[in-house]
């Protein structure tokens, strides 16, 4: 009994110590998360941006969610949105607001993939370029959803802990 209690106490202690250690390094972790998220968003955005226009439109329209008229603006606007968010997050400008935007974006992406999966369509998510229809057995929806969930966790960290090292926010007095 005493042994179990000691173990439980030890477990609690470990969690507390661990959390304290994390919090001591929080501003560095935030910097790391900012850089990581910026690289991810920037790569995804640029990969789409540098593709043939027709392919970008096909990638968006194969989700069969948006009305025809919205396909073009979304196909061309999304890469720019991702790169702009990436840049601002990298420099730590309006970090919390940008992180919220990124979070919303990933929620929308995840919802889109789930919607496509539920309707039995076979597409490539086009998250890092490419996209469009694929053969029936060649979809990777679960993988794509979990990957986006991972990115969502990064964005959530920034929402909760927006203050970080080397941030423009800090320079501007936030």
């Amino acid at each position, binding site marked *: 009994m005493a042994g179990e209690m000691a173990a439980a106490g030890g477990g609690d202690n470990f969690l507390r110590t661990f959390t304290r250690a994390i919090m001591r390094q929080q501003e560095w972790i935030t910097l790391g998360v900012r850089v990581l998220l910026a690289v991810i968003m920037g790569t995804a955005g640029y990969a789409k941006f540098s593709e*043939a226009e027709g392919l970008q439109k096909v990638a968006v329209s194969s989700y069969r969610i948006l009305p025809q008229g919205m396909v073009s603006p979304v196909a061309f606007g999304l890469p720019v949105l991702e790169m*702009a968010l990436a840049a601002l997050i990298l420099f730590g400008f309006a970090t919390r607001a940008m992180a919220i935007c990124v979070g919303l974006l990933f929620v929308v992406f995840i919802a889109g993939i789930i919607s496509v999966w539920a309707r039995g369509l076979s597409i490539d998510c086009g998250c890092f370029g*490419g996209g469009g229809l694929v053969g029936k057995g060649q979809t990777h929806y679960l993988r794509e959803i979990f990957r986006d969930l991972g990115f969502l966790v990064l964005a959530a960290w920034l929402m909760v802990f927006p203050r970080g090292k080397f941030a423009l926010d800090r320079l501007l007095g936030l």
Partner: protein
Amino acid sequence: MSKAARQRSARERLAEERKRQAQKQQRVRRLTISLSGLVIVALAVVITVYFVNKKDPNVYTGAFAPTSRQADGAILASKPGAKAPKLEVFEDFQCPICHEFENASGSTIKRLAAAGKVNVLYYPFWLFKQQSEPIKGNSERAANAALCAPADKWIQYHDAIYKHQPAEGSKGFSNKDLIGWGKDLGFDTPQFEQCVNGNQKQSQVDAMTNFAENTRKVTGTPTVFLNGQSLDLSSTLLNAKNLEKTILAAPPAAVSPSTSPSTAPSTSASPSATAKK
């Protein structure tokens, strides 16, 4: 209250007031920065979309290779005597991705055909035969009209049809419109009108569809064969530069010998004298 106590509480109130001011300033600062971030991002997106929309769709203004109708209804675009690879284009006029393909690479294909660098066979067929209305009907009427249209202005007619492609799910390609576009191009004869209204080419549409799906094993559109090899959609068909490179690198191939008598070659600009190589 003693004087000292009054002074102390006054100092405290001042300090509190300053603290409140500082907090208010911080809030305003935070709001301003957040708003600025959102505005920057929104501007970037809006400006990009505006400029991309403004871009003129690349309208082809060059010469067209002479076109002739094959026995099976396909249209051959080929410069006389050209020894060039064979490009076979299987498409459905109602298919949105075919529209994207035409937008992306149509001009390139026409230009290469006119220069004798590729021989193109167009096979518009009825991919959406098993779909429900209105897609099924749209697709059939367009395929029928394309077979009714004479060979010499065929590519321009084909382009006009794509230009007016209805959104997937809405009705379009009415016979009236299909005849109207023929009229715009100058081939609105009574025979053409009867052919369109009376769906006179139905059996040829079916035969071409059968050829595409059962003989050539085409399962989706656009499917494009270069010398018999299917080209990849994302990397090649939607990427005009890549498509051109692939075509120019391919060896010449024989085109099917059966041709119905050629009608006069059509050009939208008079070609300069071709140099003998």
